[in-house]
């Protein structure tokens, strides 16, 4: 038993160290080629539609939902939050610039000064704190509404995460995020990559697995599952809320939203969808 564990451990270490030789650019190229070959003929932007790019029946139902989307009232609430001045008279525009359509594409970004990944949600709460306001809760509610509004305004623009390759700390954050995506975890011993790189397009019971490529474009997401759980029909949630749910599903203890682990994961995860059109917020089961 101990022998098996040691063998597995050393196999893991070897895999990680060979991965570290290639940089983000090489990773991205390989990642793209892999998905192009796995789903021949599928246009790049179609990956942003997740399982609805793969299953015609699910697609019909989804398109019907997107005609009168249940997230619209929450996107409106997000706009109100964006427009409402803080008590000190300033507003989000003082932190992010006047044009709300130009915010989403700047995140997540590497902050060289703070030596950490800054996500859109982190920047939103930084802005609130800087202006003497109480930070929002991380996973749902106002932060998801505002993030959804900024995503909605940015629809059609392409994800463009920049990883400064001359900053070893930035590369380290990227590598940590990548390792997170490929690492086995939880009692069920599953990696994000198991379902979303190895087996997208397959079914787990009735659930169709989405490809890793394009997973981030529609976040914050409006999920029917979350809508049912909420009292006011608010099914919106942030990317880190979803990460927590995924981790729980493999029976791993989730990390807190906006923890270093999830921010690094997001850095890798969003970078892998560079060049895909933002279509946030999206409706999902």
């Amino acid at each position, binding site marked *: 038993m101990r022998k098996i564990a040691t063998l597995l451990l050393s196999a893991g270490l070897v895999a990680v160290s060979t991965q570290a030789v290639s940089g983000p650019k090489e990773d991205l190229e390989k990642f793209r080629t892999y998905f192009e070959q796995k789903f021949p003929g599928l246009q790049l932007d179609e990956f942003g539609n997740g399982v609805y790019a793969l299953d015609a029946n699910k697609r019909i139902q989804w398109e019907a939902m997107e005609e009168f989307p249940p997230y619209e009232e929450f996107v409106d609430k997000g706009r109100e939050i964006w427009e409402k001045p803080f008590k000190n008279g300033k507003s989000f525009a003082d932190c992010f610039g006047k044009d709300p359509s130009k915010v989403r594409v700047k995140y997540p970004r590497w902050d060289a000064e703070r030596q950490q990944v800054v996500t859109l949600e982190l920047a939103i709460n930084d802005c609130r704190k800087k202006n003497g306001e109480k930070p929002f809760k991380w996973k749902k509610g106002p932060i998801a509404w505002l993030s959804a509004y900024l995503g909605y305004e940015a629809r059609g623009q392409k994800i463009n995460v920049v990883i400064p390759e001359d900053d070893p700390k930035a590369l380290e954050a990227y590598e940590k995020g990548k390792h997170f995506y490929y690492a086995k975890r939880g*009692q069920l011993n*599953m990696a994000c990559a198991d379902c979303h790189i190895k087996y997208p397009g*397959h079914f787990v019971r009735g659930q169709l697995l989405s490809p890793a490529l394009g997973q981030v474009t529609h976040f914050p997401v409006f999920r029917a599952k979350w809508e049912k759980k909420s009292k006011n029909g608010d099914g919106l949630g942030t990317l880190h809320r979803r990460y927590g749910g995924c981790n729980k599903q493999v029976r791993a203890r989730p990390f807190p939203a906006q923890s270093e682990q999830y921010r690094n994961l997001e850095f890798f995860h969003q970078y892998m969808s560079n060049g895909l059109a933002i279509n946030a917020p999206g409706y999902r089961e």
Partner: protein
Amino acid sequence: MTSNNHRFSGLAGSLLLAAGLVITAQASAAEDPLSAGKKIAFDRKKGNCLACHHIEGGTLAGNVAPPLVAMKHRFPDKAKLRAQIWDARTNNPRTIMPPFGPHQILSEKEIDLVTEFIYSL
């Protein structure tokens, strides 16, 4: 007083636990191994084999892994089938199949029962 209470609740706990064990043992003794194994295999919180494998009699099976058919031909040695269920990583370190034994997702007894059921397919 407090320590007495603790001792009492500890004692009561053990009695309850013992009673529970007897009931569980009786229940599984009454059920034949095949249907007990099937129940565990189909239970989403237990084996949840249907998440990935097609199994006759199950609905909404996933298709991540091979359908479980002709098992006696694929695993003439029942012990090898049990070993595969216990820890599929021995044959494939990167397998998506959960390590039911080492991670104690199922008890040894439950793995025995699931093995009986799968072997019958």
